[in-house]
């Protein structure tokens, strides 16, 4: 069964149609790449999945649980919305690390705040925090940042900052990890280290959606690929198939630019 089922998502900003009837499934352990020119709706789609935007139409289902259905809106309590959000992790183009916290604190902050809501938090506070710190350290080590844990974001390079952001998103163990053009804000010589980390996650069968302009990377890493244009999915399928032998004229035209 698919981890994620997205059905008929539509979204308008004022009179501009940004997403129209977008549907796709994502299997557990698969990586999905979304490509397309700027303004094609890729980022808005990710923002809808992370509840940063509210779709006008359609539904989002994770592991059989419908998190959002435009036809059956629920008056959401803040608590419910937060629980739903935690199915997804988000890595932003511009990192958005919290500048006043160290790399490790960035990774552990949300987990510590969530732990405070556990009923036995007061008795086990020390133990819980130690576990969270150990988990955060392990994640940063996995990102190759063992030496940088106590650095503040402004003391890190863009590539290091983005790797901290990936660790931060992984800390809450999301079902699906979303990347919004994770290397677009980086200098060319720094994209490699971030792509390598994402490649590593794909090897571990992390379920991911990656919006990217790195065609070679998408072709290599993704199990499936979606090409979007003007808010609709034009073509989807096996990445090699779509990138090397696109069926649609629009896909072909887009790919000639790379």
């Amino acid at each position, binding site marked *: 069964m698919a981890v994620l089922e997205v059905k008929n998502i539509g979204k308008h900003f004022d009179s501009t149609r940004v997403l129209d009837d977008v549907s796709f499934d994502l299997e557990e352990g698969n990586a999905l790449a979304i490509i397309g020119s700027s303004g094609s709706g890729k980022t808005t789609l990710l923002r809808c999945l992370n509840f940063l935007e509210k779709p006008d139409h359609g539904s989002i289902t994770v592991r059989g649980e419908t998190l959002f259905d435009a036809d059956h809106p629920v008056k959401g309590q*803040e608590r419910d919305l937060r*629980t739903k959000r935690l199915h997804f*992790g988000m890595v*932003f183009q511009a990192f*958005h690390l919290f*500048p006043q916290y160290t790399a490790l604190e960035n990774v552990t902050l949300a987990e510590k705040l969530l732990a405070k809501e556990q009923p036995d938090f007061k008795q086990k506070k020390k133990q819980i925090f130690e576990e969270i710190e150990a988990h955060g350290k392990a994640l940063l080590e996995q990102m190759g940042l063992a030496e940088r844990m106590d650095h503040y*974001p402004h003391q890190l390079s863009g590539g290091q900052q983005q790797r901290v952001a990936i660790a*931060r*998103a992984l800390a809450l163990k999301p079902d699906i990890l979303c990347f919004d053009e994770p290397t677009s804000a980086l200098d060319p010589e720094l994209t490699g280290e971030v792509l390598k980390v994402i490649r590593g996650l794909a090897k571990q069968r992390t379920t991911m959606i990656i919006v990217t302009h790195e065609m070679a990377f998408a072709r290599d890493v993704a199990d499936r690929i979606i090409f979007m244009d003007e808010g609709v999915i034009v073509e989807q399928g096996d990445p090699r198939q779509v990138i090397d032998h696109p069926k649609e004229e629009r896909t072909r035209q887009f790919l000639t630019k790379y």
Partner: protein
Amino acid sequence: MFFSVTQALLDGLLTTFQIFIFTLLFSLPLGLILAFGEMSRWKLLRGLIQTLVWIIRGTPLMLQLIIIFYGPGLWLGQNIWSGSEAGRITATVVAFSINYACYFSVIFRGGIEGVPVGQREAGEVLGMTKSQIFFKVTLLQMVKRVVPPMSNEIITLVKDTSLARIIAAYELTFAGYSFMKSNGLTWPLFYTGVFYLLFVGILTLLFNYIERKLDYFR
């Protein structure tokens, strides 16, 4: 003579200090409330606050002080402030608090809006509540942004307290001036200046300290 001048200036300084402290105490929270009001979804509330800020920033503080001190007496037929020194200080604090809250609100709004939206969104996707995002993520970044402009305003406030002389509150400048009027002495005026310089000097050190404390992040 030096001793009695010092004595009088210290008396004046106490009044100046009271006006300063109480104005800060009331105008800081009031300014934050106005800042939130100006960012509110309700157009009417936004409009009301914008009009208030326009009027208060658009007219002299001295004029506002005169209206607030003498107005009620003339309209109601009785002076709500009482003629005592305490009454004059209270009226001054009221006028100053309204005035400074308006200036602070603009600074606070700049500080809040200056924190990138991405910070809030990053908190949201990590499942934080609105209050957790405010207190754990945006507040300190906002404080860092508002310290330099706030230090300007607060230093201006120290010197604006001298306007209270217009309603005969016995503050520092009034105290120094009285020796010129009665004894023809000018040196107490310079001596008065030294009091202000020390006051502002201490504040400057304090603000520098706060800025240094917040210097560890960008």
